[in-house]
């Protein structure tokens, strides 16, 4: 028996494992549930066992629909299945990871339910029954609180790596439901490949060296790569350096790129536009190097050095 009025997290696979954002959402949802049932909803093939991972993060329920149709299922197929489950069980709140996949499915579900969806939230909490979704807007220059007062369920997608995932004890009830959605003949998957992407390594990295316009020289970048190797750090960039052939948008930290929360971030030649700061503000230790002592990045940093990034990189290379 699936609980009504529950808070649902739509689980997502990343390759063969459950996506980190799903686990992060489970942890956050438990913290704000205040007596509400927290349920993970999972669409998977009979060969998959995502519920085992989900159970370790303490949901009250795991709703599992298994069907071969979910092998390479289209957005439409998945959204229709989710909509059917939601209509049948009437949860109060539905959260998606604001991943490309979550952001593709959520609005399809939203439209079928004719309800409200807030995209890409950085925070959310309840006021009685009302979910208050906090989302940045205008390149993270403003924050908005968005609510959906009159319709249910209320929906939001939440930016990955905004919350930490913590394992939790507790016996999740696993509810197995019949899949009802059919395969989508108008959208046929021909090929899928897991990317060995910088995104994954960057968003999960413990240490990051980030390069900006002030470090945009071949020699400096080469030096940084050597220092990063020695430190075991990943290399990220701010927006201007994605124009270089040796960096891609996936190595970009910030609003339009990846949000990171490493133990250490060393910013070299990054002035620190708001859109960049938001992408790294939850880093534990922030050290920044800039020629301009008044660059906005400096007050966002635990330690600062005013000067040419090239000089510091050279000195670091010597010492390592």
């Amino acid at each position, binding site marked *: 028996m699936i609980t009504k009025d529950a808070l649902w997290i739509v689980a997502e696979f990343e390759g063969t494992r459950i996506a980190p954002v799903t686990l992060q959402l489970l942890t956050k949802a438990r913290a704000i549930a205040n007596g509400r049932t927290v349920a993970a909803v999972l669409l998977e093939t009979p060969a998959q066992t995502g519920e085992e991972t989900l159970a370790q993060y303490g949901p009250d329920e795991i709703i599992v629909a298994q069907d071969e149709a979910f092998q390479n299922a289209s957005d439409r197929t998945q959204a229709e299945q989710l909509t059917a489950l939601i209509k049948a069980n009437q949860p109060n709140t539905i959260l998606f990871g604001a991943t490309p996949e979550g952001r593709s499915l959520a609005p399809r579900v939203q439209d079928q339910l004719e309800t409200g969806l807030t995209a890409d939230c950085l925070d959310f909490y309840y006021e009685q029954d009302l979910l208050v979704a906090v989302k940045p807007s205008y390149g993270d220059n403003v924050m908005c*609180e968005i609510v*959906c007062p009159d319709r249910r369920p209320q929906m939001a997608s939440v930016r990955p790596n905004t919350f930490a995932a913590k394992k939790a004890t507790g016996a999740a009830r696993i509810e197995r439901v019949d899949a009802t959605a059919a395969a989508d003949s108008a959208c046929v998957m021909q090929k899928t490949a897991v990317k060995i992407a910088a995104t994954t390594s960057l968003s999960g990295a413990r240490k990051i060296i980030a390069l900006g316009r002030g470090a945009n020289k071949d020699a400096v970048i080469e030096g940084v790569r050597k220092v990063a190797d020695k430190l075991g750090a990943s290399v990220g960039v701010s927006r201007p350096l994605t124009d270089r052939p040796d960096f891609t948008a996936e190595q970009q930290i910030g609003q339009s790129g990846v949000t990171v929360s490493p133990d250490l971030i060393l910013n070299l030649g990054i002035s620190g536009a708001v859109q960049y700061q938001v992408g790294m503000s939850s880093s534990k230790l922030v050290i920044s190097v800039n020629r301009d002592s008044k660059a906005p990045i400096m007050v966002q940093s635990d*330690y600062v*050095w005013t000067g040419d990034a090239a000089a510091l990189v050279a000195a670091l290379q010597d010492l390592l």
Partner: protein
Amino acid sequence: MKIVVCIKQVPGSNRVSFDPITHNLVREGMAGRMNPFDENAIEAAVRLREQVGGEVVLLSMGPDATKETLHDGMAMGADSAYLLSSRAFAGSDTLATGYILAQAIRKIGAIDLILFGRQAVDADTGQVGPIVATELDLPQATFAEKIQPLDAQHVVVNRDLGAVTQTVQLTLPAVITVRAEANQPRYESPVAIQQSLTKPLTTWTDQDLTLDASRIGQAGSPTIVRKVYAPEPTTRAAKPLPQDPKEAAKALLDILQAQGLL
């Protein structure tokens, strides 16, 4: 191939201010511009037309000033444009906007492909494309970085979903949202700029479309922006490292050592 590209006019800069009482965006003195991702969608559409023939139709909803953005799009090579403009549309959120656009697309008719930019840079939702697809019960491929026409009924799309890439074959009509990596949008040529003002631009109000009044404007918008505020700039200690680069590097490594990061 008849392609509709849905585009949005966004503020010329993301340095915006808000009316603290009404929570409305203060747009005074700020010229609008085309959402940059929409330029990628138009470029993709124009290239498809160059490959297989057909026409590229722009569609946008907004105030009269949106015509400038539509002219920009026609200067990039689109053939014609529709502007949906009415007081009745004011206050529409993504759901209402998607519904209105879908009704306009039905009226334009005989569409093979509907393209969007991956998201707009003001609100960053990326929701309207999938909503339109759902309204029209069409398949979708979001976050496309390559679109290849296959035959009169099919296109093959490469999607980049961050952790995975997908190659999907869509049966037309279909909805595609386009990533910035898909292409380099062309500059408007001076000749095309001059021609853009002579291409057909049609304005439709709520009276020109078949609309359920409960699904448009504020009535059709379930979400409410109840508060807008500037994010608190979190500041940290900003302790300076020694000025000499060698000493600074040494101090930096000492800090990492002390925090167990070496």
